[in-house]
């Protein structure tokens, strides 16, 4: 199967949706005669990018600066983006550095999403053509300058490691030619290299540029921002989602030394202080009465029970909710072996190491945010709405973020908007740093949605699926955002709806019910695949067991039926690299899943230790198109596997009477070093357009482990996490 590159996830706004979003922000009068892109860019100041355009700067000493429009919060995209430019420019990689772009949707929009933002594992994918052209154009300008200076044909000039040379022996550095090259018009369609001649891309020379800064404490995160006169804020939030402030008594809070002010904002009560510790003490001393009239007061058990009742047919959707079909063809056979399974997935917190935070300066002619902005355009729009400005006039300086995993890509800009409200109240452009504690972060919502799947498969005489009935009950991530998909929320059905197993099944009946719950939900690294990959891959092993077939051979047969050649190729590569059998005492489980344009196969070796699954060797094969940095792809497979394994083994957020039970890492168990697997990564050679690597490594390990446990114990997994 030639898997088409899926629509990039994140804020993919249609024209109509953009108009809706912008109307809210900028006021209808401004919209007349504007295209959506113009509306988003309203107020964006003119920026002078220099002769080589918005993505490439050549410094006077010949060093190359690549401007990344994407935030770096671990994915290694800064290295990959820089390597794309350096390859086409033939720069000296050791003299290439990366800086973060400002917010400017007119030039730094995600090519697949229409807004400036990082998400859906799209940074490399959407920048590939753009940055190749930027690098190639700059190279052509240096070649042109040399050709004129030496009076030789441009075709006879070569460039290597930042040195331009001619067969006659003439040579010059980028620094030597900088002034002349800057006067040459960049070619509209620069000639790109034949990928066969790449000498940087695909090599182990493409390494991170930020490792030293991050190994010395010098890398600057939002948490580290310090400015003259800066205040630090904390906010008392309602204990239940949807709760609001009824009243508060700030007497004790204001008595804390260092507390400057206490006031109400839309999301709670803000305590503003001269230091983080004073803000914390002030907030601890604050007394707030909450109004829970409109709050979600159900526990997560009750929410799950209601989802299960729907899926089993014991209850019918009410209100806005209804069953929506995402796959329908053929009829159920009247005979054949039936295999049924249900799967429960809890809410999950992203829990990045740096809790949410933001620095805002509002007033006095300034509207500026300094933080790890994942979707600057949306953060500009939300800020503009609060302060009454044009979105493009909101300045954003994007810093490194200590992880996100989806949490910082929030259509409401929740924590950033909170900081803007506080800074607006403080006024005068005085910098305010909002600090969320770990407890704020963990109980603050925007979780991976609680989700239930019920699957019933009828097998044919050969043991393969003849009919696949699938019910999903979950909460829509897209509902309530400025993006209103016209059909079924794709984040709820991806990985199920496009599964090769459904394609290989003659008759299918897939339906989803998107339920309302007062718990805010959001994409969580790999989004829909966080549950669909588990369901499809663990179901396949249960079917193979029922059919008396080897799960790997069973998959291969279904991939052939579906024409899923990339699935087959990565499975075969992983099997080849894994070798014939695990070490004594370990049991293997296999899983394969495609998302964000890439396909990943994993073979996990598992044993039980003290009643808990222990994962040792994990053999990973990925097809992600052209591999720009094999080392960083491996890093993402290692890290993605740990992130997915952490969730599969331990991850859960629960609520009792609407109050989140897990407050910190003592309650929300995460994977630690002694529990981490050894991941081996093998990359399928490919000349295809590069696809995602940040997320595809996450959803595969869970079902691989469950399949190993099934092989070991005969018991299927019905709910996550595995360790209660």
């Amino acid at each position, binding site marked *: 199967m030639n898997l088409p590159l899926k629509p990039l996830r994140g804020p993919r706004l249609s024209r109509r949706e953009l108009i809706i979003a912008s109307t809210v922000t900028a006021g209808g009068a401004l919209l007349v005669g504007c295209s959506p892109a113009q509306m988003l860019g309203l107020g964006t100041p003119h920026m002078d990018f220099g002769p080589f355009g918005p993505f490439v700067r050549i410094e006077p000493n010949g060093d190359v600066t690549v401007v990344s429009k994407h935030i770096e919060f671990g994915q290694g995209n800064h290295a990959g983006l820089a390597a794309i430019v350096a390859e086409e420019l033939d720069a000296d990689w050791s003299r290439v550095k990366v800086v973060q772009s400002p917010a400017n949707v007119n030039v730094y929009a995600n090519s697949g999403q229409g807004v400036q933002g990082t998400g859906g594992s799209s940074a490399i994918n959407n920048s590939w053509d753009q940055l190749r052209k930027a690098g190639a154009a700059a190279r052509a300008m240096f070649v042109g300058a040399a050709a004129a200076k030496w009076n030789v044909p441009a075709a006879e000039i070569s460039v290597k490691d930042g040195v331009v040379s001619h067969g006659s022996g003439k040579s010059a550095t980028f620094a030597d030619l900088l002034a002349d090259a800057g006067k040459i018009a960049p070619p509209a369609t620069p000639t790109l290299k034949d990928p066969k001649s790449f000498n940087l891309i695909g090599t182990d020379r493409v390494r991170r540029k930020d490792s030293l800064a991050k190994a010395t404490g010098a890398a600057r995160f939002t948490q580290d921002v310090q400015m003259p006169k800066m205040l630090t804020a904390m906010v008392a939030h309602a204990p239940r989602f949807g709760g609001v402030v009824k009243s508060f008594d700030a007497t004790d809070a204001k008595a804390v030394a260092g507390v400057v002010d206490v006031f109400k904002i839309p999301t709670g009560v803000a305590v503003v202080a001269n230091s983080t510790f004073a803000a914390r003490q002030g907030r601890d001393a604050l007394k707030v009465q909450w109004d829970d009239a409109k709050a979600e007061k159900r526990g997560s058990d009750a929410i799950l029970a209601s989802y299960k009742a729907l899926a089993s047919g014991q209850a019918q959707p009410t209100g806005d909710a209804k069953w929506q079909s995402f796959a329908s063809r053929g009829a159920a056979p009247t005979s054949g072996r039936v295999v049924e399974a249900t799967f429960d997935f809890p809410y999950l917190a992203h829990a990045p190491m740096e809790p949410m935070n933001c620095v805002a300066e509002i007033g006095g002619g300034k509207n500026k945010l300094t933080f790890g902005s994942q979707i600057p355009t949306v953060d500009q729009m939300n800020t503009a709405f609060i302060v009454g400005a044009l979105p493009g006039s909101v300045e954003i300086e994007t810093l490194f973020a200590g*992880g996100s995993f989806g949490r910082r890509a929030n259509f409401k800009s929740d924590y950033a908007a909170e900081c803007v409200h506080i800074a607006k109240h403080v006024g005068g452009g005085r910098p305010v740093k909002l600090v969320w504690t770990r407890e704020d972060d963990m109980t603050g919502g925007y979780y991976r949605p609680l989700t239930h799947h019920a699957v019933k498969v009828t097998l044919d005489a050969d043991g393969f699926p003849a009919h696949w009935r699938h019910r999903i009950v979950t909460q829509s991530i897209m509902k309530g955002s400025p993006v209103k998909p016209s059909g079924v929320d794709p984040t709820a059905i991806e990985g199920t709806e496009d599964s090769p197993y459904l394609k290989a099944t003659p008759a299918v009946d897939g339906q989803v019910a998107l339920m309302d719950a007062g718990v805010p939900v959001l994409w969580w690294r790999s989004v829909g695949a966080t549950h669909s990959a588990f369901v499809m891959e663990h179901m396949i092993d249960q079917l193979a067991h029922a059919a008396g077939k080897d799960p790997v051979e069973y998959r291969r047969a279904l991939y052939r039926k579906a024409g899923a050649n990339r699935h087959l190729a990565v499975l075969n590569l992983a099997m080849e690299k894994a070798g014939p059998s695990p070490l004594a005492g370990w049991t293997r489980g296999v899983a394969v899943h495609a998302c964000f344009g890439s396909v990943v196969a994993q073979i996990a070796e598992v044993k039980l230790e003290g009643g808990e699954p222990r994962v040792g060797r994990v053999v990973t094969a990925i097809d992600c198109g052209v591999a720009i940095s094999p080392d960083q792809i491996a890093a993402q497979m290692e890290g993605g596997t740990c992130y997915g394994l952490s969730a599969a083994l331990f991850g859960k957020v629960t609520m009792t009477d609407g109050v989140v039970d897990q407050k910190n890492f003592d309650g929300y168990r995460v994977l630690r*070093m*002694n529990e981490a697997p050894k991941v081996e990564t093998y990359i399928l050679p490919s000349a295809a357009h590069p696809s995602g690597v940040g997320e595809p490594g996450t959803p595969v390990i869970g079902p691989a482990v469950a399949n190993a446990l099934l092989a070991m114990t005969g018991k299927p997994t019905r709910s996550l996490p595995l360790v209660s």
Partner: protein
Amino acid sequence: MAKTLKINGVSRTVAAPPDTPLLWVLRDELGLTGTKYGCGIAQCGACTVHIDGKATRSCQTPIGALNDANITTIEGLGGTHPLQAAWVKHDVPQCGYCQSGQIMSAAALLAGTPRPSEADIDGAMHGNICRCGAYQRIKAAILDAAAAPTATGA
């Protein structure tokens, strides 16, 4: 109220009250922001510093409890510690936020156990969470630094 702390070999006088955690004094008052806040309850290790050579969670260490102690932060390793070289060699960091704490825990380990086993590393490092999941490279980098001829710990 003023208190003197010995940090990275230098005596620093600070104004914070004695119940203030060392973490916030380092970060807010002294501008040593390499030491990170991650959980505030000694569960994640992002705030790890050395107090008299011992890996200690600064978020749970009030400055009032520190008298003549020698405090070392990530800035005090100077950027030339064998672990820092190994971190770069292996491209250990992803988001990087936890790495100061990881390196401080590892440096304390190597100071006491110059040739640690994998089990020694797990024992010393399981208190440091990395949500990016760089554990495999952290371990490889520690083993690499331990094998380096100049590795003597912090």
